[in-house]
């Protein structure tokens, strides 16, 4: 029976959506307070930056690579945003500088992976350590304090700021979903991840594509870090701790194949939504918080196992 399921298009997206729906239904029944508009808005704002990084990670994994340095990049970008702002730069330049800093870090990864042909998992393991320790050395874990008033919410005020973050993430999601599906550049990533040699024969330049993917990952991380930092009046220098595994898990749960060539922004959105709802759901259901990680682990394994089973039975 499972074998027949494999024939369904977007099986993973549907199954994740189903589980998410079940979770939301349980919440609606047991803890209707979850659905209060302002709470949901807050939740969306909180998950916006995770979604953006997870979409970048989807791109990377679709291209058959991986980037475990995004957490460190995220932390560094946040601190850079804070420091640029305290240095008195206008927010526009702060945003630009943050994204540029992310892009530079991503480009470094890209050069090492695509340029030298090194395995991405080891390269990004190394850059993860280097960035994290360098940041710790220079900042000693100190929060960036004394930010000007126009830093938080870009000086727009809370409600407008929240909507800015939500809309920015939504726009990014739509752009990513549309671009990956409907732009030549997006399809090139799928082609390269599916079969780099065939892609070369089709006239694409796989190495260049991989470089750009890492560059984009860095820039996207910078953007996400900025959108996360401006939600607060001070910048936490550890803001990206553990982010890399969180977003990889979200992408994988959402159906992105680690072997490349497969995965959709929609799936990743569902993955982020599912994994991001488990934590709050436990609070609302008054469940013991100590089981959260175990439940997340089970979800990851179950999601991948269902797919593996479906394919095996064919």
């Amino acid at each position, binding site marked *: 029976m499972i074998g027949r399921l494999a*024939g369904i298009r977007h099986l993973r997206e549907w199954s994740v959506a189903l589980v998410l729906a079940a979770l939301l239904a349980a919440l609606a029944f047991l803890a209707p307070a979850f659905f209060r508009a302002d709470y949901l808005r807050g939740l969306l704002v909180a998950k916006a930056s995770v979604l953006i990084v997870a979409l970048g990670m989807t791109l990377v994994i679709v291209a058959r690579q991986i980037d475990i340095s995004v957490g460190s990049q995220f932390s560094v970008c946040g601190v850079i945003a804070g420091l640029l702002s305290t240095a008195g730069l206008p927010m526009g330049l702060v945003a630009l500088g943050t994204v540029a800093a992310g892009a530079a870090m991503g480009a470094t990864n890209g050069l090492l992976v695509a340029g030298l042909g090194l395995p991405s998992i080891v390269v990004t393991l190394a850059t993860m350590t280097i960035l994290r320790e360098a940041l710790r050395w220079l900042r000693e874990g100190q929060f960036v304090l004394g930010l000007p008033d126009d830093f938080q919410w870009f000086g727009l005020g809370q409600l407008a700021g929240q909507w800015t973050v939500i809309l920015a993430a939504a726009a990014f999601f739509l752009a990513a979903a549309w671009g990956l599906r409907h732009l030549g550049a997006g*399809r090139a990533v799928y*082609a390269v991840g599916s079969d780099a040699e065939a892609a070369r024969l089709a*006239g694409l330049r796989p190495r260049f594509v991989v470089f750009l993917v890492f560059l984009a990952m860095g820039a996207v991380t910078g953007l996400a870090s900025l959108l996360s930092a401006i939600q607060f009046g001070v910048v936490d220098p550890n803001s990206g701790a553990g982010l890399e595994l969180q977003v990889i898990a979200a992408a994988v749960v959402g159906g992105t194949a680690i072997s490349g*060539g497969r995965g959709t922004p929609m799936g990743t959105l569902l993955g982020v939504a599912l994994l991001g709802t488990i934590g709050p759901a436990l609070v609302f259901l008054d469940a013991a918080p100590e089981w959260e990680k175990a439940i997340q682990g089970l979800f990851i394994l179950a999601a991948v196992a269902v797919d593996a089973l479906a394919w095996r039975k064919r």
Partner: protein
Amino acid sequence: MLLRMRGIVKSYDGVRALRGVSFDLAAGEVHALVGENGAGKSTLVKAITGAVVPDAGEILLDGRPVALPDPTTARSLGIRAVYQQPALFPDLSVAENIALGLGAGRAFRRVRWRALRERARALLARAGADIDPEAEVRRLSMPEQQLVEIARAIGAGARILVLDEPTASLGGREVERLFGVIRELRAGGTGIVYISHRLEELPEVADRVTALRDGELVATHPMQAVSRADLIRMMVGRDVSAVFPKRPMEPGPTRLAVRGLTREADGIRDVSFDVRRGEILGLAGLVGAGRTETARLIFGLAPCDRGVIELDGRPITIRSPADAVAAGIAYVPEDRRRHGVIPEMSVADNTTLAVLRRVAAHGWLDRRREDALAEAYVERLGVKTPSVAAPVGSLSGGNQQKVALARWLATDPKVLVLDEPTQGIDVGAKAEIHRLMGDLAARGLAIVMISSELPEILGMSDRIAVMHAGRVAAVVDRAGATQESLLALALGEAAPAPTGGGP
């Protein structure tokens, strides 16, 4: 002339695949290319598509010399090929595969999916395929994937189109449609190189036919000027001097018996044969006839749906290669570098890989025993290697094959299955391997030899099983067989009453 090739020479590892072949193709012509496996057809085609660069010779396109250093260049000049093993993106849809095959779009131009699908649908229809353009390619069967390739090539509007066995896996109706497409393209001025083993279909589509043999051009004729018998005569008659015929001997009792072996997924149906002690059974047939697949079933590399394998009269159960090895069956596979040896590992390590338990004492490796064993085989098989510690990948093809053989001889097997044992190796090494096979058989080993070289089959085998389309078409004695009769059987041309079947 659209394409003119003069004196093309290409060698792999010192083995000459093409020895100064000339070939030409006119616009609006279908030029068939025939020859046995290994005659040099594939290499010639690869020289056209830029996949290999000839060592010597010139290629003229529209009368102007061109260099084809890589497939991309060839594609940009309007040269397309459809291979038997499709090179598609498995994770992408059919429509997208067709679109990408027609060249990558601009990075920031919108992909018009509706247009892509419509175009794919139209092209697939022209290729005579009933395939949903939105289906993922990895869910398609092999023939379906091939049709996608053909549709893609049609869409590319290629000036030169190479079709390598396009009909091998197609059904009758699909073949008819494909021929329609070919005629249409020809009418539009496309030059088509058509490779096929189905000789009966050549008169239907081809204008001219060229036969290759041993990397040399035999002849080029207008299609209507040659009969099927002529074609077979042109193809066969390879150089037999390199074969050391097996000394005839009285075979012993039946060692290996295969009864009704079936695996639908591979198209293997009801394969039966048996091999006696001291006997070499030749397994002849065309590529895709199911010979390698049969060997894989015997060696436990794939599970069979039905069928029995008996060793010395007792049925045995083989679920994995480990079971086969334990039972005394050895298999030297066709793809040497991927399966036969592990190129990164040393000669010694490769030699002992299947007998680790035996060279080791309670699981502990004994380097000296391993080296001694490897050195013994290096000497016995005449492997040319600087030392047994050298990685196998650094040796020539013939020596790699000897190492692969050494690995299995070290297991002291009862049954040895050799899959294309002398493919792509030089004449000297080939002779040595043949002599060795003779020796092994003389010592009571039962050998199954898969080979696409008819002289080799005829020279080495005691009996010959010819496979066609996943079945054993006939089992014949060497005495009664000729190259022509075997080729006719392999082509599915005739089914003479089997002579000298099993006991």
